[in-house]
């Protein structure tokens, strides 16, 4: 019973940190202790490992979610030209 409760609490603790762990964003880093604890838990908990896998797959799908099109290079060129114009006017 105690073991099950401890496992549940650890899963809850882990679930709240998986996204930050995977994103590794400099604004919200996990401490080395949190990373170790999370990695230890993921190594043994099938449910949380599955959640981490889902997070990774979702992030990948969202990053690809673009229709395969690229940034319109003409827009980039026009804005770059605009920036050059500002620079030139300032230098003149």
């Amino acid at each position, binding site marked *: 019973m105690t073991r099950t409760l401890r496992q549940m609490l650890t899963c809850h603790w882990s679930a709240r940190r998986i996204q930050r762990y995977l994103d590794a964003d400099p604004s919200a880093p996990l401490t080395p202790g949190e990373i170790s604890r999370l990695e230890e838990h993921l190594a043994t908990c099938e449910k949380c490992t599955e959640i981490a896998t889902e997070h990774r797959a979702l992030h*990948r799908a969202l*990053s690809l979610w673009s229709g395969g099109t*690229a940034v319109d290079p003409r827009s980039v060129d026009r804005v770059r030209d605009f920036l050059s114009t500002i620079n030139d006017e*300032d230098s003149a």
Partner: protein
Amino acid sequence: MEPEIEVLLRVALTITSNQADAEDLVQETLLRAYRAIDRFDGRYPRAWLLTILRNTNANMHRRQRPGTIGDWELIRTARPAFGKAELPSAEDNFLDGELHSDLDAAVRALDPRFRAALVLVDVHDLSYAEAAAVMGVPVGTVMSRLSRASDRVRKSLRFSPLTRGDLS
């Protein structure tokens, strides 16, 4: 500033949903940034530019019509404006084609505040701080909204190969 042009255009198009308006917004943003460059401390240039972009957009809307518009009306679409430059692989095509509608529906079903966080961080690859600059909220709020958005989309796609990890 040049390396940030593409990011600014991508975020601007998400906000305006219109190519011409996005270009206007980015040009106005760069002009304001150029005028304010002496006051910039040199740290986090992208976040600085995105803050100016957000404020510029709000000001442009104020000029166009009376009153202010809500933050979350600014992010009008969950669909990314444009994506990566390299050619997609066969797997990418599958993800984009077969699963697109499920993903699209799941993201569109989100509360606009949550959707904004998810699109800015996961689609446009902004950092939490940069997304916070665009949304005008603290980083902690971005994290909280991103977590909720991600959980909801993940759960709604639970039975699709997208989140079973078959393709990862």
